[in-house]
């Protein structure tokens, strides 16, 4: 797995600066990046979209692909936007942990919107789910994790290289283990 950080310096290299698009090209690029950032960023980051777009623009300019219209497709721009949003989430978490982000007193909401009833105690249960996942057998943990992330059983099997039958078995048994673990912690509907 790659273990690399991503750049976030606002400066633009002289080489990239020489390739800066002008006029309509720049406006079009900015609009497309803004759409991508708005689509990817979770609700709680909506007031930071302008900053995200600015960082994304810098990344695009630094990529050296500005003049290559073939590379400047939606997939590339969404990749950049996703990377910028994730970097910002990680930075936000670090700032919160060190008390360096006083302007964000509200709790961070996950991207998956839950109803108020589900939110009650949901976060605490989530922490226990993470703990219980760590206690599952490896193959079951992987299958259940992807399943909890929203994938279907066939998708989970395909992604992990298992047959549908094996994936079904792993998810079924893994969920049973997870529920048993939660029950031991007193978490049962």
């Amino acid at each position, binding site marked *: *797995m*790659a*273990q*690399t950080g*991503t750049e976030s310096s606002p400066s633009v290299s002289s080489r990239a600066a020489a390739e800066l698009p002008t006029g309509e090209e720049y406006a079009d690029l900015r609009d497309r990046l803004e759409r*991508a950032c708005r*689509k*990817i960023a*979770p609700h709680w980051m909506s007031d930071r979209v302008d900053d995200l777009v600015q960082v994304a623009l810098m990344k695009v300019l630094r990529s050296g692909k500005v003049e290559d219209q073939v590379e400047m497709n939606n*997939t590339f721009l*969404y*990749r950049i*936007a*996703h*990377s910028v*949003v*994730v970097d910002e*989430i*990680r930075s936000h*978490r*670090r700032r919160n*942990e060190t008390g360096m982000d006083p302007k964000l007193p509200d*709790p*961070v*909401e*996950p*991207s*998956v919107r*839950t109803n108020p009833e*589900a*939110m009650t105690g*949901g*976060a*605490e*249960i*989530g*922490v226990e*789910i*993470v703990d219980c*996942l*760590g206690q599952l057998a*490896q193959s079951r*943990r*992987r299958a259940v*994790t*992807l399943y*909890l*992330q*929203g994938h*279907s059983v066939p*998708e989970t099997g*395909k*992604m*992990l*290289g298992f047959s549908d039958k094996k994936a079904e078995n792993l998810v079924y048994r893994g*969920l049973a283990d997870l*529920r048993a673990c*939660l029950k031991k912690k007193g978490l*049962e*509907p």
Partner: protein
Amino acid sequence: MSLKRLREAFASAFDSLDPEDEVLEQCPDPDVLYNAYHGMLTAAELAEVTDHMARCPVCAEAYRLARNTPPPASERVSGPDRH
């Protein structure tokens, strides 16, 4: 506990769990999470990413955000068919 409730609660862990610094320092590049979601990793690579997501709510959230991105046009290994 219903599947819907489990999925919502797992996503909510992002809000309350303070990931250990050790885990955050080992977080994969956002591109790796994008590739994982879109089935562009091998099964072994995906397994490694999945192991990380199981204990890191921040990366689990980053993976979920990749749902809102278009799939790459090529280089696909395997992965979800819904988009």
